[in-house]
C-alpha cells in the first residue's frame, strides 16, 4: 500500500470560525457561509478559486442534497462535491478526502465547512427525535441509553480494567476549561477545579455534567489546496502530512472493546504516512465529546500505553508547558461543539503561530482526531509546518 502517497502534497491555507454559543436565528447555511467566506479570504483566494466543496450535515436543519444547497448558497460551482455522515469524525475525514482528490487531480482547491445551530435551532420535536435515535432502534434504544450513557460505560470499563479515576477524568475537563479561559471565542471561560467537576450533577455515572461537551451554535471552515499552490498564498501553509481512518462498528454492542477504539488503526495509518511518531508531536487537538474520549484517544494515538491515560493527563502534562498541550482552544468541553471543525482550525492556527496567548511556542507539528457515534468512526490527521517537511 502506498501509504506515503499524499504526504505533504496538500495544505490547509485558509481558516474561518464564527462566533459560538447561543446565536438565535442563525441558520446552518449562514453559519457555514460566514466561516467559509472568512476561510477563503484568509487564504487570499476568491470563491471562484474553489472547485471542490465538502461538508458534513446539519442535525438541526436536515436537508436533502445539503452540499449542493451549500455550494449554491455560496455561489460556487464545484466539480467535486460530497457530504459525509461520520458524526464527529466527519471533518477530519473530509480533510483526507480533500487531500486525496487534489492529489488525484480531480480538483485543486477544496472548501470544507461545518455549521449548525444545534443550541437554539432545534425544534422540540427535533430534540425528542434526536434523543430517541441514540443506539440501535430495536436492540439498544429501547433501554434508553443516552449518548452520555454509552460513553459512561466506556469510562466504567476503563476504570475496571486500569484503575482510572473520576479525578483523572475531571483533570481533562479542568484543563480544557483553563485553555478556553484564554480563548475569547469560547462559550465557557470561568476556570473550574477538579472538585467542581466531581460535584457537578451526574448525568450517567461516572460522567458528570462537566465531563460532557457543550451544545453550540456556530460554524467553522477551512480551505485545502495543493502544496504547490499553497506556497503562493497569503498564509504559511499547514501541510497535511498524514491521514488515517478506522471504523470498527457503529453500535456499541458490536464494539470488540470498550477501551480500545478504531482511533488506534486510524492513528497507525496517519503516523505511518506522516513519517512522524507521537514523540514528534507538539500539540494535539483531540475530539472531546466526553472526557472519556480524550483518555481513550491519547492511548490509541500512542502518546501513552493502553491503560495509562489516566496518569498521563495528570500533573499538567496536557497543558501549556507540558509534554503535550491538548485542545488549546478549549475543545468541545469548554470552547464549543462544532463537531470537531474547530479542532482543525485551532491546529492550523497553532502551526501558523497565530494562537496568541495560547500559542504553543515553536509548534511545528499537530495531531487532530475526530470520533463519531459510539466510539464508532475515527479519523486522524497529522499536520506540520514547512519546517518539518
Amino acid at each position, binding site marked *: 500500500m502506498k501509504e506515503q502517497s499524499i504526504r505533504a502534497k496538500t495544505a490547509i491555507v485558509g481558516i474561518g470560525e464564527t462566533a459560538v454559543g447561543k446565536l438565535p436565528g442563525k441558520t446552518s447555511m449562514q453559519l457555514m457561509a460566514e466561516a467559509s467566506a472568512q476561510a477563503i479570504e484568509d487564504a487570499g483566494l476568491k470563491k471562484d478559486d474553489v472547485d471542490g466543496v465538502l461538508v458534513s450535515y446539519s442535525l438541526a436543519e436536515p436537508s436533502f442534497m445539503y452540499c449542493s444547497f451549500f455550494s449554491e448558497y455560496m455561489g460556487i460551482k464545484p466539480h467535486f462535491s460530497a457530504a459525509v455522515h461520520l458524526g464527529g469524525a466527519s471533518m477530519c475525514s473530509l480533510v483526507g478526502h480533500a487531500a486525496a482528490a487534489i492529489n488525484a487531480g480531480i480538483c485543486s482547491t477544496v472548501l470544507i465547512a461545518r455549521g449548525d445551530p444545534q443550541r437554539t435551532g432545534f425544534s422540540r420535536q427535533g430534540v425528542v427525535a434526536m434523543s430517541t435515535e441514540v443506539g440501535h432502534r430495536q436492540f*439498544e434504544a*429501547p433501554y434508553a441509553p443516552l449518548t452520555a450513557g454509552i460513553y459512561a*460505560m466506556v469510562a*466504567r470499563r476503563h476504570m475496571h480494567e486500569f484503575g482510572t479515576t473520576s479525578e483523572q477524568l475531571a483533570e481533562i475537563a479542568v484543563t480544557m476549561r483553563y485553555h478556553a479561559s484564554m480563548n475569547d471565542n469560547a462559550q465557557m471561560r470561568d476556570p473550574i477545579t477538579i472538585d467542581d467537576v466531581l460535584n457537578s450533577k451526574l448525568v450517567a455515572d461516572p460522567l458528570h455534567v462537566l465531563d460532557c461537551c457543550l451544545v453550540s451554535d456556530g460554524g467553522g471552515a477551512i480551505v485545502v489546496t495543493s502544496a504547490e499552490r499553497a506556497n503562493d498564498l497569503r498564509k504559511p501553509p499547514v501541510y497535511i502530512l498524514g491521514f488515517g481512518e478506522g471504523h470498527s462498528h457503529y453500535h456499541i454492542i458490536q464494539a470488540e472493546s470498550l477501551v480500545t477504539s478504531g482511533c488506534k488503526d486510524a492513528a497507525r495509518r496517519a503516523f505511518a504516512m506522516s513519517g512522524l511518531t507521537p514523540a514528534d508531536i507538539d500539540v494535539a487537538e483531540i475530539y472531546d465529546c466526553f472526557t472519556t474520549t480524550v483518555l481513550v484517544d491519547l492511548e490509541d494515538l500512542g502518546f501513552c500505553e493502553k491503560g495509562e491515560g489516566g496518569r498521563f493527563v495528570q500533573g499538567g502534562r496536557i497543558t501549556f508547558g507540558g509534554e503535550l498541550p491538548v485542545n488549546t482552544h478549549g475543545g468541545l468541553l469548554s470552547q464549543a461543539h462544532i463537531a470537531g471543525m474547530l479542532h482543525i482550525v485551532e491546529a492550523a492556527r497553532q502551526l501558523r503561530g497565530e494562537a496568541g496567548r495560547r500559542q504553543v511556542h515553536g509548534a511545528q507539528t499537530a495531531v487532530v482526531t475526530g470520533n463519531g457515534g459510539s466510539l464508532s468512526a475515527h479519523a486522524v490527521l497529522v499536520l506540520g509546518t514547512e519546517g518539518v517537511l
Partner: protein
Amino acid sequence: MDGVDQLIPVPDTDTQTYWEGCKRSELLIQRCLSCEKLYFYPRMLCPHCMGRKYEWVKVSGRGVVYSYTLIRRPPVSGLEVPYILAIVELEEGVRMMSNIIDCKEDEIDIGMKVEVIFQPVSDEIYLPKFRPVKG
C-alpha cells in the same frame, strides 16, 4: 406517541423471529451454518463469514455485566431514574444492551452474574432485561 412508548421496538423481517421468541420467554440468537459462530443482532447474513444460512439457537439467558452506568437524565419522559443501563455478555459470548432490574444501585458491578427476564412493553413486545442471579 410520547415518552417511553417511542422506544418500543418495531420488528422487521430480520428480527421478527427474535421478538416472537421473547414473547415466549425464549432468547433466540442466530448461529451461522457456515462458520458456526453466533451473532447478534439478528440479520440476514453472518458478519463473520457472510454466510447466509443460519439457525436460531435458544440461549441460556445467563451472562455477566460487561459494563454499566446509572442513567440519571433519561432521554424521554416516563422513566424512573436512576436506571441501570448495561452491556451484558451472554455465556455464549455475544453482547447485548439491556437494563439491569431488581438490583440496588450499590450492588451493580462489572462481572455481576445476571439472568434474562422478559418484560412486556406492549401486546407484542416483551423486552429482554436482566436481573442479578441470586445466591
